[in-house]
Structure formats: C-alpha cells, structure tokens
C-alpha cells in the first residue's frame, strides 16, 4: 500500500494542481489525445525527482517539468519547430492577481464531487453512491443491488477513473492561476 511519506506528499502537494495542469496542457498541446499521457509522464518525473530531493516550490517545479517534457516531445516529433511555439498561448503572459478563490474552490469540493457523481453512468453511479454516500461495503452493495461482487468491483474501478477525470479537468476559478506559470515568458531560456 501507499504508506511512503513521498506518496503522501505527492497526493497532498502535487495532485491538487491537476485542474490547473490539465488546463495548461489543453491550452498548449494541440493533440488532445496525448494530454493524459503527458500529464502522467510529468507526474512520474516529478515523483522521481522528489524521491531524490523534494522541491521547495511545487507548482513552478511541476510546470517546469511539464514544459521540458513538452519540448522533448516536440523535438522528437520534429514536426513543429521551436519558432512555431510562438503561436502558443504560453507566450501570452498575464500576471493575474493572486486569487483568493482557492478558498471558494475548497468549499465547492462537495459540489464538484456531486456534479462528477451525477455524470456517472446509472449503474456505476448507484454503486459509487451506495459505497461512498451510504457507506456500504462492496459486499453489501452487491447484496443490495442483486449483482455479483465482481460487477461491483468493476464498477468501482470505472467510477474512480471517471471521478478522477471529472475532478482533474474541472473548469473553475483555480485554473486562472495556470496562466501565471507561463514559462516561455523568457524565450531565451529555451536551449
């Protein structure tokens, strides 16, 4: 199980940045299908780097790594040359005022979860509802719904993926902060 301190750190410090990161990738990466791959690889790099030494500032670190990853991929694809990145939104620097909206966002957590729950397919939704809202065990859910425990397990797996996706791509106040991490504001830093 994930009992390592580094895992706790990762869940506490890095994963909450996901909506911001997703939005950043959506703005700056044309191929939508590759975004979850990019995100996961960025996570893996952050995780590995943090095993050696934890970064002081997590947000800039995550976005720096993501940016480097994007450059690597672009080079490998050699479809797009570096100049063409001028088109990308990441050059449009805007220094948003620090938002106090993360606070509101925290209070919206339940609402977000509920919205995510509502979007699940009916059977999956019922399983998640019984498991998380009513607090039944998987076995009890199976009994209550008259389905096999394997089906419950499959629906739980499906449900958590859909929830993670919905929570990670939410469009709300926090995402405006992504614009503050436009690392291409100094293009000469690009090697």
């Amino acid at each position, binding site marked *: 199980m994930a009992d390592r301190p580094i895992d706790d750190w990762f869940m506490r410090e890095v994963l909450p940045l996901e909506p911001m990161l997703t939005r950043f990738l959506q703005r700056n990466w044309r191929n939508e299908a590759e975004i979850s791959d990019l995100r996961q690889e960025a996570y893996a790099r952050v995780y590995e780097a943090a095993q050696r030494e934890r970064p002081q500032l997590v947000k800039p670190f995550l976005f720096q790594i993501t940016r480097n990853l994007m450059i690597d991929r672009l080079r490998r694809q050699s479809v797009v040359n570096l100049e063409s990145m001028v088109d990308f939104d990441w050059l449009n620097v805007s220094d948003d005022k620090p938002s106090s909206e993360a606070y509101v966002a925290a*209070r919206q957590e339940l609402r977000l979860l*509920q919205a995510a729950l509502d979007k699940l397919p009916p059977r999956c939704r019922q399983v998640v509802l019984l498991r998380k*809202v009513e607090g039944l*065990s998987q076995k009890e859910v199976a009994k209550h719904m008259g389905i096999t425990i394997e089906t419950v*397990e499959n629906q*739980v797996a499906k449900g*958590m*993926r859909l929830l993670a996706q919905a929570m*990670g791509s939410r469009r709300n106040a926090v995402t405006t902060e992504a614009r503050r991490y436009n690392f291409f504001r100094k293009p000469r830093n690009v090697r």
Partner: protein
Amino acid sequence: MSADEAEKIAADWLAREDRGLTAEESDRMELWLDQSSLNRVAYLRLKSAWQRADRLAALKSPLAAKRETSPPRWHLKLAVAAALTLLAGGGAWLAWRPSEPSGQNYATRVGRLQAVRLADGTQVELNTNTRLHADVTDARRTVMLDSGEAYFDVVHDARRPFTVYAGNRRITDIGTKFSVFRNGDDVRVTVREGRVRVELLDQLGKPVVADAGHVVMTKGGETLVIEKSGSDIADDLSWRGGVLVFNQQTLAEAAEQFNRYNERQILVEGPARRIRIGGSFKADNVDVFVLLLHRGFGLSVNEQGGTIVVSR
C-alpha cells in the same frame, strides 16, 4: 504502457483494495507499483480521487438514516416538536398537518454555507444563519424555512410538488431553481429558472406566478413582483459562492448584507450611509471591505467591541 493502460490496471488494484486485499494480492500489487513510477503515479492519482469521494458521505439521505435508527417513540417527540413549530408559526400553519412526522432539520451558523441533498435528489444550499426543516416522503416534499435564506434546485416530480413555507407564504415550484429569503414576514423569492407560485397562506388559490428573472417581495399581505436581468439575478445569488456583489447599493444596504455573514457588525453613520458603491467582496472579509472604504472614500473606521463604526 500508455497512461490509459496503467490507469486501468491501477483502478483494478484500487477496486480490489477497496474490497479488501489478500496478503498475496497485496504483494503482487506492490510489485506492480514498484515496476515503474508511471504505475505508481497512476495509482496515487486514482487513490486520491477515491479518497476525496469519501466526502460524498455528507450527502447521506437523512430519511434513510432515520429509518435505520429511529425507534417509534422518537416519532412522537418529532410530532410534538412539529406541532409546536406550527403553533409558533401562527394560526395559518394549522391548515398544514403532517400525516406522519418525519423530516430533518438543517441549520447554518453566521458566515457558514451548507449544501444538502434531499432524498428526492433536490439540492438545497443554505445561506448564512439559516434554519429550515425538510420533509421528503413518497407522498410530499415540503420545506419550512424558519429563518434565513436557501437556494433550491428542485428535481421535477409532477406527482409531488415541491413546496416551501416561509412566513405567511407558500411557494410551490413548477420544476425550477429559486431561492427564498425570510426575515419574519418579509419574504423574498428569486427565480433563476422555471416558474414558481407564491401564495398567501390565508388566501390560498390566489397565487402570484413568477417566472425566471422575477423577484417576488412580500411584506405582510402585500406582494411586489419585479423583473431583473439574468446578471442581476446572478448577483443576487452570488452568496452561493461566498461572494457579495453590489451594484449601486447604498453603504447602509451593503453593511446590512455584510452583517448577515459576520459576527463583527458594521455600523455606518451619518451621510456616509447614502454613498453608493459597487463591486464584489468575499462575504466574510469585512476587513478588506472597510479598508477599501477608508482608502476610497476617506471614511474613518473605528472598531469598538465587535462593532466597526464607519463615518465621514
């Protein structure tokens, strides 16, 4: 392995973990996690989402909970409490008799918001300092707003109209989103979507019907309906996000709004009461509000024992 494949396997492991792992499974999972950081981050990401979903327990249906735990004697107590509430609410309440005592009380303290989901799926958001009683059964859906303000996103059900009692008014939804504010017999209904019917309890059957964009204001037996733009309605409901929006309100009115959300009260004195202001503020951030008044209008701000006095 693509992100998608790793995520799928991670989800399968977590689902098994959620059910309970055998020692052998646990070992195999550890092996898989150690294989690659990609596996591990996929696992942690889903684990985090699944843990966050624990908060959904806050939505647990109060009726279901009651069914499990209430011995019959408890019903009697509730019946007595309900009867007392009815008496306290005035004679008109006597017309409304619960056939079976049930339901749940909800309340928020000053400065707090709370979202609850009723057994029928209707979403209720309580504003600051609000008390209400919700009763949802197979036969009816009733909310009694004792004080404060609440926003309703009603799941339509033609068989069971959704009814809110506030002061001497009855508000019946016709499938909609609306909010009700009550201070004694002052009742204000703001309709965001759909249509509601507002009736005086001793003149049932002579309803005022309000559509989206309408605000119904009542005092005693009088009723005023005004029409507002969508953005004005959104401003009126901005409290749902913990924000107050002002658009050419007087300082006295703005202070009154802040005072609903904070124990520390703002008192505006003299001609400063008539200054008109606009802007949006976090409802619980009195300090920034008065600071801006000081800076913007050169008003003096003095705090004395929980009261912030603002004057020229």
